[in-house]
């Protein structure tokens, strides 16, 4: 009987010990005050002293792979803020939205999150950070206005800030243009669709083999790289009269003309059959121009001997305002964050030191004023800074990618395969897109109710 009781007590103690060990944040030397204030310090055991009281755990959710970029900034931040411990959780991009939604419903989001869905801001799940940034001496006007409006600014209020600028640019191969006697595109004045098509067609050379061929361009529909105002009304609620207006129809006509002339690399079955992508052709010096993500294109071309330059993406018509599509890694503080103050500290640290870190990593920072430092002596990078400077605030179109999705069918199927005129096809697709757009706005508006 005594044995049984002793065993029960031991088991109970073990269980209690396990529960203590499992519960809450694991204690560290810096967060547990090991000495009672009343205890005489002279008689206390020598122990590792806390740095400054309890440590605040800060959780950051981001896309898988991103945490590697933050190792040094976190180390630096933790050194300067010894009471804050940052934990970055990598989540696969495909699961990120569902995981955040679930956490929000459960009322247990992390402190900081990467905002890749505008609905979270619209429904008040992120805190406005403008005042905090201002108090820290951070002026959001120093940051790329295009990327900020796409990801972080809603009705003039900032909800997040990032560390890099992603941008779409027109890369060109100077050697190919020189050989064809064509002037380099300007870094500040965009080509019109007519000029773009003329350039692409002029340099295209169909050789006997893939290695002997040169293509002028590598684009599909311009709906994703041009200003959304070309296809939607200023309030983002209407497509009729924009998607099917004369200028957009002309853009599609030009794309078809280029494709039929073999000037656009897409649809080249030989290249695809040999397993090459258009970027391979750019890197091998067989593609005259490419509309490409800036960081990807620059890093790729800097590893080749190709003489290259960048320009803003073509616009529908000569004289149209230049447009550079930009975006950033938008980090904000969840409204239900356990430690909003510490989270604000970290986000503002990313806005400053995070941007500096990107410069060191060779990635274009979000902060425009660091552009020159990032570009250094590189002519191509300096041009990229000029192109980035053309970025303007965009317009909000909720569910943009789902709405424009059918336009690939319209272009590849109806126009190219079936040979139907763009005006007729676009007129047919307008009601389909408008229906999807109306539904997207209906949902968007419901977030704000």
């Amino acid at each position, binding site marked *: 009987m005594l044995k049984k009781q002793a065993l029960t007590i031991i088991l109970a103690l073990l269980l209690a010990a396990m529960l203590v060990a499992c519960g809450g944040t694991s204690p560290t030397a810096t967060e547990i005050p090991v000495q009672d204030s009343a205890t005489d310090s002279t008689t206390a055991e020598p122990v590792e002293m806390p740095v400054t009281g309890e440590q605040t755990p800060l959780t950051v959710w981001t896309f898988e792979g991103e945490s590697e970029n933050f190792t040094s900034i976190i180390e630096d931040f933790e050194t300067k803020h010894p009471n804050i411990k940052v934990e970055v959780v990598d989540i696969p991009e495909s699961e990120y*939205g*569902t995981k955040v*939604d679930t956490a*929000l*419903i459960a009322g247990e989001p992390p402190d900081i999150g990467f905002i890749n869905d505008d*609905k979270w801001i619209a*429904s008040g*799940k992120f805190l406005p950070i403008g005042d905090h940034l201002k108090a820290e001496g951070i002026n959001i006007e120093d940051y790329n206005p295009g990327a900020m409006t796409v990801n972080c600014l809603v009705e003039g209020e900032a909800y997040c800030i990032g560390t890099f600028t992603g941008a779409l640019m027109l890369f060109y191969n100077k050697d190919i243009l020189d050989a064809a006697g064509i002037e380099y595109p300007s870094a500040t004045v965009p080509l019109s669709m007519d000029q773009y098509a003329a350039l692409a067609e002029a340099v295209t050379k169909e050789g006997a083999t893939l290695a002997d061929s040169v293509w002028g361009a590598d684009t599909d529909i311009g709906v994703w790289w041009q200003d959304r105002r070309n296809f939607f009304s200023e309030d983002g609620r209407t497509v009729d009269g924009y998607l099917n207006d004369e200028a957009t129809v002309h853009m599609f006509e030009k794309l078809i003309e280029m494709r039929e002339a073999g000037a656009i690399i897409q649809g080249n*079955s030989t290249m*695809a*059959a*040999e*397993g090459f992508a258009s970027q391979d052709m750019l890197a091998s010096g067989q593609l005259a121009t490419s509309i490409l993500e800036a960081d990807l294109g620059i890093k790729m071309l800097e590893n080749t001997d190709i003489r290259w330059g960048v320009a803003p993406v073509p616009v529908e018509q000569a004289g149209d305002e230049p447009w550079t599509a930009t975006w950033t890694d938008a980090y904000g503080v969840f409204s239900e964050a356990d430690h909003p103050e510490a989270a604000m500290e970290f986000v503002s640290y990313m806005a400053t030191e995070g941007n500096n870190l990107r410069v060191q990593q060779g990635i274009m920072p979000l902060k425009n004023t660091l552009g020159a430092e990032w570009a250094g002596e590189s002519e191509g990078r300096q041009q990229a800074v000029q192109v980035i400077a053309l970025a303007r605030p965009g317009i909000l179109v909720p*569910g943009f990618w*789902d709405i424009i999705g*059918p336009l690939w*069918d319209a272009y*590849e*199927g109806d126009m190219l395969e079936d040979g139907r005129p763009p005006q007729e096809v676009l007129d047919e697709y307008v009601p*389909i897109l408008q*229906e999807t757009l109306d*539904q*997207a706005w209906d*949902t968007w508006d*419901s*977030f704000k*109710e």
Partner: protein
Amino acid sequence: MEASGLETKSATKKKGKLSPLAAREERAAYLFLLPWILGVIFFLLGPILASFALSFTKWNLFSPPEWVGLANYQKMFHDRDFYNSMGVTLKYMLLSIPLFSAAALGLSVLLNQKLRGMYVLRTVMFMPSVLAGTAVAVMFSMLLQPDAGIVNQFLRGIGIANPPRWLMSEQWAVPAIVLMGLWGIGGGTIIYLAGLQNIPPTLYEAADIDGASAWQKFTRITLPLLTPTIFFQLITSLAAAFQIFDIAFVLSGRGARRGALMFYLLNIYNESFRESRFGYASALAWVLVLISAITILVINSTSNRWVYYEVDTKGES
């Protein structure tokens, strides 16, 4: 008289109090069942009832659900994606179920032969079935790539100049998914094989004595006695076809035109997790439940006309 006394005693025991031991056992039984019961309540019944209630609301996940009555169900009548996704799913069913059943049955007949190494062959045939659907989908998307894929390279090699563009073609996208499904017929084959091995060999011996040909034995003995297995396979295949998702989810972004791979479950996923229309998505889910239930009930009601059980399940002699 004695027997009657025992019955009375037993009835009294049933109605009255249990013995302490029996009561303890009963409590223990419920205690052991509790995790499962709680699981069913919270993770199955709860969500099922919640989704039914949500199907009458407009809910974006973050705002409180708004009651809309039958509006979500009415919306389906005008929803292009509803008709398209239902069409794609039905097309897949009509193509896949007969093909998979025939292929699995044929294969099981071959694997039922008494040959050396047959166990190895059976294992090899079953192996693809254990691979994850996502991995298989990615692998087949490479095999069926219209320009560089090995399938089209082979077809060109044998003289087909313009082979199908498979997943990138409006017409061929669903057939391509069906062909992919053949990869996983090992599961069905094993079930057919079990069915074949349950057929008494004496029937074949009697048929041999009567001089029946192989075809006659197959159509008069094998096929009728396999009908319970075929019935089981038909019902499970139907249920699986209604629920096809993983392959469609992985492959839908790979160029399929005009919603050619917009399966019904993918449509539900898009409506809920992409478009945040959880009320409408719930209504779509309930319509799927209704359609599948009706289909299965109709098939079930016909079963007594074409399914033959060796033992009479109705208890009639």
